[in-house]
């Protein structure tokens, strides 16, 4: 059996099944959707076991060199707490694990976000606007005015009226212009994905049809 051919046909059929959604929901789409969801769920389960659970927990608790690292029992206990959800009487234990995940995530992200989304941006905005030619000055002014008015838009303690309202309007206008540019840019990337799929169908799959029925070379 030519497995390459099987692979091309499977890829082409599932692609067409999924695109059939553009017409309406139908059994072919439903089949492809369930296949996709089921296979990916199974794949991620195995991936998590072999790439997360074993190397990050099991191997550290029982290292190759021998010895038992008891400290790694703690995350193990939390993991068991999560499974406790299946037993109604002790389901509440899972809240400890969830609290740990949410609290740790929020705490760790606070420092990272504050550093990259606040301080680095402020530092990047403190510069002289009077350098370079006319366009450079204009560009610098747009940047500074955009940042300041954008911040005013996200100011929740004051109603958007009067001077605050006008500044916020400038801010949201600049944001929308940026979103428009981002929209166009991303759409171009999506079109290239579509081109990739159509190229696959036309150049890889379509030529196999005559071969399948013994027509042509």
């Amino acid at each position, binding site marked *: 059996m030519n497995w390459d051919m099987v692979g091309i046909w499977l890829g082409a059929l599932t692609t067409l099944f999924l695109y059939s959604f553009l017409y309406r929901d139908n059994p072919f789409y439903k089949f492809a959707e369930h296949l996709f969801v089921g296979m990916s769920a199974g794949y991620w389960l195995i991936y998590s076991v072999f790439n997360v659970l074993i190397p990050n927990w099991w191997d550290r608790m029982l290292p190759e060199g021998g010895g038992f690292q008891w400290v790694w029992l703690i995350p193990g206990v939390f993991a068991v707490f999560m499974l406790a959800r299946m037993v109604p009487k002790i389901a509440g234990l899972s809240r400890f694990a969830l609290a740990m995940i949410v609290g740790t995530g929020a705490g760790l992200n606070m420092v990272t976000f504050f550093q990259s989304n606040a*301080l680095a941006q402020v530092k990047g905005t403190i510069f002289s606007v009077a350098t370079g030619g006319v366009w450079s000055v204009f560009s610098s002014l747009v940047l500074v005015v955009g940042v300041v008015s954008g*911040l005013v838009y996200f100011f929740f*303690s004051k109603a958007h009226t009067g001077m605050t309202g006008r500044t916020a309007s400038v801010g949201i206008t600049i944001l929308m212009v940026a979103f428009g540019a981002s929209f166009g840019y991303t759409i171009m990337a999506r079109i290239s994905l579509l081109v990739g799929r159509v190229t696959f169908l036309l150049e890889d799959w379509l030529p196999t049809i005559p071969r399948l029925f013994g027509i042509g070379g």
Partner: protein
Amino acid sequence: MERIWLLIPVLLMSTAGPAASDTVGPPGTGVPATFEAPDESGPPEVSRAVDLQACDVSNDAGGAVDLTWLMETGGVIPDSLAVIRTSPSGEEERIAILAPGSIMYRDTTASNGVEYEYRIVSLIRGEEAASSGTAAAAASAQWIHSGRIGMMVILIILAGAILYFIDTGKKGKQLYIREIAGLAAVDDAVGRATEMGKPVLYIPGIMDMDDIQTIASMVILGRVARKTAEYGSPLLVPTCRSVVMSVSQEVVKEGYLQAGRPDAYNKEHIQYLTDDQFGYAAGVDGIMVREKPAAIFLLGTFYAESLILAETGRSVGAIQISGTAMPSQIPFFVAACDYTLIGEELFAASAYLSREPKLLGSLKGQDAAKLFFIVLIVLGVVAATIGQFWPPLNGIAEFLRDIVTVN
């Protein structure tokens, strides 16, 4: 006098002893050989590492020592270098084998507080041919990162402001928050679903519970769950992560309890689909076209699946309220949804919806932070611009930049 140069590996290789064909001029051209004949008085010595320095890695959690050295030139280049570590008990350990041109190494297996002695050994065919002198260092952990003190000070000030406003709110003072259009429509959206007898679909993004946006989304989910419980509409929550499913179940259950309708809570409506981004998108699309929800909430972290979900939601005629802090996905939500919470509005939502003094105070404190940054930027830009013509002001701009610099 011994001549030593600091050489980068490429230079080192180029001096390693050129091939014979490269060392003489082309035959018959009369060009002399371009290298000096080796000293025949004895075998040349193997290059060894010199000026070895060992020091603790600063601003880390300990367990690491940095080694730097230079390589002697003029001798035979070794096959490789070995890093030898001697513990206080005298036990010698070869901790790494490096390429011959290496001039630095970080030992990340050191124990804190133990002073190790290091030396670099030049190896020829695996045998020790020459050795550097020794250098000693002990690894240690630092509680404070010296490059982040500025950030710590700003964080303390902002945390102080947040605590102040929380305290003010708790004392009963009314804290004003301006209207956020997307959030004002939450009740309307749930009401519409109830009137139409259709379910409400809540999509909390595709990231896990360690993501701030997912955490913010869970707070809004609590509010939506309470409303659906009050109105008696089914609430569907397909999730992309198992932990998000567990948290969502807890949050929705709590919402139904607060609404006095614990009997209406259906655990099966909050389900895990798959971790796969597009597998999840395909699954949610299927739910949309089959269940035909009247209201769809897309709140959390989204990536390339955002437009797929929002477009499908629009095609089934649902009222859609979206929100994310992902700049690249906001345009799609703006284009395809009825209301969009842009960036920080998603984080403000919890305070806006709950009106809890703790959350409102926190939001007020964040506004104070924004005001602080606006002032910092305006002062900095003015100082840097005028500083071009009057240099003393440049110092102020530099100072302001230093405050927000994190190493």
